[in-house]
C-alpha cells in the first residue's frame, strides 16, 4: 500500500438556503481556498473526483457544470460519483494506490433547498414496493429510531443528549448552521416531527460544499507540515430492502471499522455522519469508540448537513485535528442511503 495523506481541506458555510448562488458559485470560493492553502495550480493536480446528485439539482448531468469551478482546460483527468464526496475521496485514494496519480482533489456539493429533501430521498428506496408509497426520509428514519428504542439500544433522552452535545460542540465551528446550548428537558418537551423523532433529532437541510486534497507520501510531505495519513479506508453496503436488514445496529459500519483497523489504536477524535441522532448513536456503537474519544468536535451533521458534502466534511474535520496536533489518531465516518445503508470509515494518523 502507498502512504497517502489528507493535506488540505476547505468548506463553505452550511446554510438553510443559498438564496442566489448556484452550485458552481458556492464551489468556486471553496476550491479557491483549497488551491490557496496548497499553493497548487490545476495542472499540478493529477486527478479530480466529485460527489453530487442530479436529483438535488433537478437537472441531468448537473455535475458537469460543477467542473466550471475547477477550470478544466487544458483537459483534466476527472471522475464523479452520484454519492457523497467521501466516496469520491475513496475513488481518488484508489487512483493514487494504483499509481495513476500523486495529487488528487475531491469535492462534494449540494443545494437541497431547491427541492423537498425528505421527498427526494424517498427515491433511494426500492422502486417496486417502497417508493410508490413515497415515504419521506424522516418517517423512514423514525421507524428505525422506534425499533432502536423498543429494543433498548437507545432512548429519546440519549438521542436528545446527542443533539445537545453536537450543537454545543458546533459553537466553535464557524461553518455550522445549527448551534447553541440546549437543555435536555426542554428538547424532550418539544412535539414530535415523526414519533419518536423531534426536530432536534434531525440534521438540518443545508446547502453547501467542501473540498479536500490528498497526496502520496512524497508530495504530502511537501504540502503539509503534519499530513493526516490515511491508514485505513473501507466502505461497505447493506441490502436495499429495509425488511432484510437489522436496523438496530450498523453491521456495515462494524465490518468497515474492523477492516479499517479503527480499534488498532486509541481514537482521539471521531467525526461521525449521523443524519439523525439515533443513527449517530448506532455508528458510535458500531465503531466501538470508548469514553476517551471526542465525538463530533465540529458538531457533525446535526449542526450542518450539506448533502453530498457532509461525509467528505467529516474527513476534513478529522484531518484538521491531526494537522493542528490536537489528535494523533482520528476516525471519520460517512453514510449514504436510507437508515445507514452504506457506510464508509477512514482512519487518519499523524505519525
Amino acid at each position, binding site marked *: 500500500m502507498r502512504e497517502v495523506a489528507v493535506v488540505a481541506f476547505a468548506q463553505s458555510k452550511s446554510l438553510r438556503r443559498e438564496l442566489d448562488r448556484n452550485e*458552481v*458559485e458556492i464551489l468556486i470560493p471553496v*476550491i479557491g481556498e483549497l488551491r490557496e492553502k496548497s499553493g497548487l495550480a490545476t495542472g499540478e493536480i493529477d486527478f479530480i473526483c466529485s460527489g453530487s446528485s442530479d436529483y438535488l439539482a433537478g437537472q441531468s448531468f448537473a455535475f458537469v457544470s460543477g467542473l466550471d469551478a475547477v*477550470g*478544466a482546460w487544458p483537459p483534466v483527468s476527472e471522475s464523479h460519483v452520484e454519492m457523497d464526496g467521501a466516496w469520491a475521496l475513496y475513488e481518488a485514494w484508489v487512483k493514487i494506490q494504483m499509481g495513476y496519480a500523486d495529487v488528487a482533489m475531491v469535492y462534494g456539493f449540494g443545494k437541497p433547498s431547491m*427541492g423537498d429533501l425528505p421527498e427526494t430521498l424517498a427515491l433511494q428506496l426500492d422502486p417496486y414496493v417502497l417508493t410508490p408509497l413515497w415515504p419521506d426520509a424522516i418517517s423512514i428514519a423514525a421507524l428505525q429510531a422506534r425499533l432502536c428504542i423498543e429494543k433498548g439500544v437507545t432512548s429519546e433522552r440519549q438521542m436528545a443528549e446527542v443533539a445537545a452535545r453536537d450543537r454545543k460542540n458546533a459553537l466553535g465551528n464557524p461553518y455550522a448552521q445549527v448551534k447553541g446550548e440546549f437543555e435536555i428537558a426542554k428538547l424532550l418537551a418539544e412535539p414530535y416531527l415523526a414519533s419518536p423523532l423531534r426536530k432536534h433529532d434531525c440534521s438540518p437541510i443545508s446547502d453547501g460544499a467542501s473540498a479536500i486534497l490528498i497526496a502520496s507520501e512524497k508530495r504530502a510531505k511537501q504540502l503539509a507540515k503534519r499530513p493526516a495519513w490515511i491508514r485505513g479506508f473501507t466502505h461497505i453496503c447493506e441490502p436495499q430492502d429495509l425488511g432484510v436488514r437489522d436496523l438496530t445496529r450498523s453491521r456495515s459500519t462494524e465490518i468497515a471499522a474492523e477492516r479499517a483497523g479503527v480499534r488498532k489504536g486509541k481514537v482521539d477524535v471521531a467525526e461521525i455522519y449521523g443524519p439523525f441522532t439515533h443513527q449517530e448513536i448506532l455508528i458510535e456503537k458500531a465503531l466501538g469508540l470508548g469514553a476517551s474519544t471526542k465525538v463530533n468536535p465540529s458538531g457533525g451533521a446535526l449542526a450542518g448537513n450539506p448533502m453530498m458534502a457532509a461525509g467528505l466534511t467529516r474527513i476534513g474535520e478529522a484531518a484538521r485535528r491531526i494537522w493542528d496536533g490536537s489528535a494523533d489518531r482520528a476516525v471519520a465516518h460517512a453514510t449514504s442511503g436510507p437508515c445507514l445503508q452504506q457506510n464508509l470509515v477512514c482512519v487518519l494518523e499523524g505519525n
Partner: protein
Amino acid sequence: MSEPVEILKTPVKLDYTYSAGQSASRFLRAMAEGKLIGQRCPVDGRVYFPTRGSCPQHGALMRPEPVELSDRGTVVTFSINRVPSENIKLDLPYAPVQVLLDGADTILMHVLGECPIDQVHMGMRVQAVWKPKSEWTTSIGNIKYFKPSGEPDAPFDSYKEHI
C-alpha cells in the same frame, strides 16, 4: 401460472424552486431591460456571454463589473433546420446560428430571420431583432432572432478562434 406483471406504474414528481445563480440572474435581469451583459474572466480578460458565473477554463469567479455588449455580431457557424419545434415559431426551414457578439469572446446560439436560407454564411454580419418592449422578460427570448445587418462580411481571422 398467472400472467407475469410486465408493467408497474410508479409516477415520480419532484418540484424545485430553481435559482439561476448570481451571475446568470444579473444577465437575465439585464435582458429584461434590453441590455446584453457579459462578464470578464479575471485571469485572461476574455468576455463571456452569456455568463454562468465562472470561467470554465480557469475555475475563477467572473469579475463582477458588467460588460455591456452590442446587439450586433458575426455568424461564426450555422446549420439549416427542417425539423419543427414547439419552442421556435419560425417557418421551416430556418437557420440556427452561432453569433459572436461584438465585444464578446464566447458565442451565442440563436436563430436567423429575414434572410433567404441559401444566403446564410460564415462571417455574415447580423443584428438582433427584439420583441416589442412590452413583451420583454428575463429571457434571451426577448431577441426574436438575428437578421442580416447589411454590413460587409467580417474577415475570417476576426472570428476563427471562435469556431
